[in-house]
């Protein structure tokens, strides 16, 4: 999956308007990135990418790119 496809997937899954996110977007600026979104991200990373994401790791993410890099 390309980074663009991953970003679209993130927007779709987190119900963020298409085109809002890019690699440099700061997670702290995304209103929708609440605790429900974090759980969604954990489930998504497991379902789509087979990666087990922890709460600690999420805390260390600063930008969308950090999420994309984790997805692999």
């Amino acid at each position: 999956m390309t980074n663009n496809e991953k970003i679209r997937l993130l927007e779709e899954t987190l119900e963020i308007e298409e085109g809002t996110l890019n690699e440099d977007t700061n997670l702290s600026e995304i209103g929708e990135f609440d605790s429900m979104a974090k759980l969604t991200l954990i489930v998504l990373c497991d379902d789509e990418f087979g990666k087990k994401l922890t709460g600690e790791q999420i805390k260390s993410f600063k930008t969308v790119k950090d999420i994309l890099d984790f997805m692999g």
Partner: protein
Amino acid sequence: MTNPFDFSGHTILITGAANGIGSEIASMLSAQGARLILVDKDKAGLNELLNNLHTSNHSSYEFDVAHLEGIDSFLTKVLKEAGPLDGYVNCIGIRSRRPLNLLVPAIVSQVMAVNFSAFIEFVRVISRKGNFNKGMSIVSISSIAAQRGNAVVTAYAASKAAVDGAVRCLARELHSKKIRINTVAPSQIDTPEFKKLQSMNLQTDDPILSRQYMGLGKPYDVSNAVLFLLSSASGFITGSTLPVDGGFLTS
């Protein structure tokens, strides 16, 4: 009067024996003299449990109950080796946590299959003539989630509510065979799975612990209730759901 909590001479099947609550139940029953048949898909967990139990007359079988079609032949083989059962405790449950938008049909089916359908199939097989002794008691670990709503646990809560509802019917139907069947409904219990959840530090639902005004439950709290329901001390109790919830349902 004999001690109803003396399980010597009793053969008891425990599914999900390797997890936090299952292994506590196994330890307690073993200490009370029961001969255990331990089933789990976690082979390493089963071996560790066997090492920790008091006596050596227990047997273990690795099996994934998600294989619904294989349960009949698996159990038939096990019971041929072990003999008829005096008790069956089901501790298996996928603790599914998923927001609705990711709760797709395949996941709902999977949770219902493991948490509900597998249990029904186990009961169907072990209640066949010859597979049980008179007075057999069946206990399934349910959850207060079956009675109280919360976000992200829809499939889990529904599967536990399904078990509670089925047990009310099975109690009636199995009475003619003198089999009792009940569930235990714990609220949050201090297990390794809970510690993992806490470490995620995500507050997506009602602060559970504030509603459990007696604090976090321990596995032995659940196990004590299970032993009561397995024993003749609960001889007049069937089709019920026993909360072990630190007051959660009253708060």
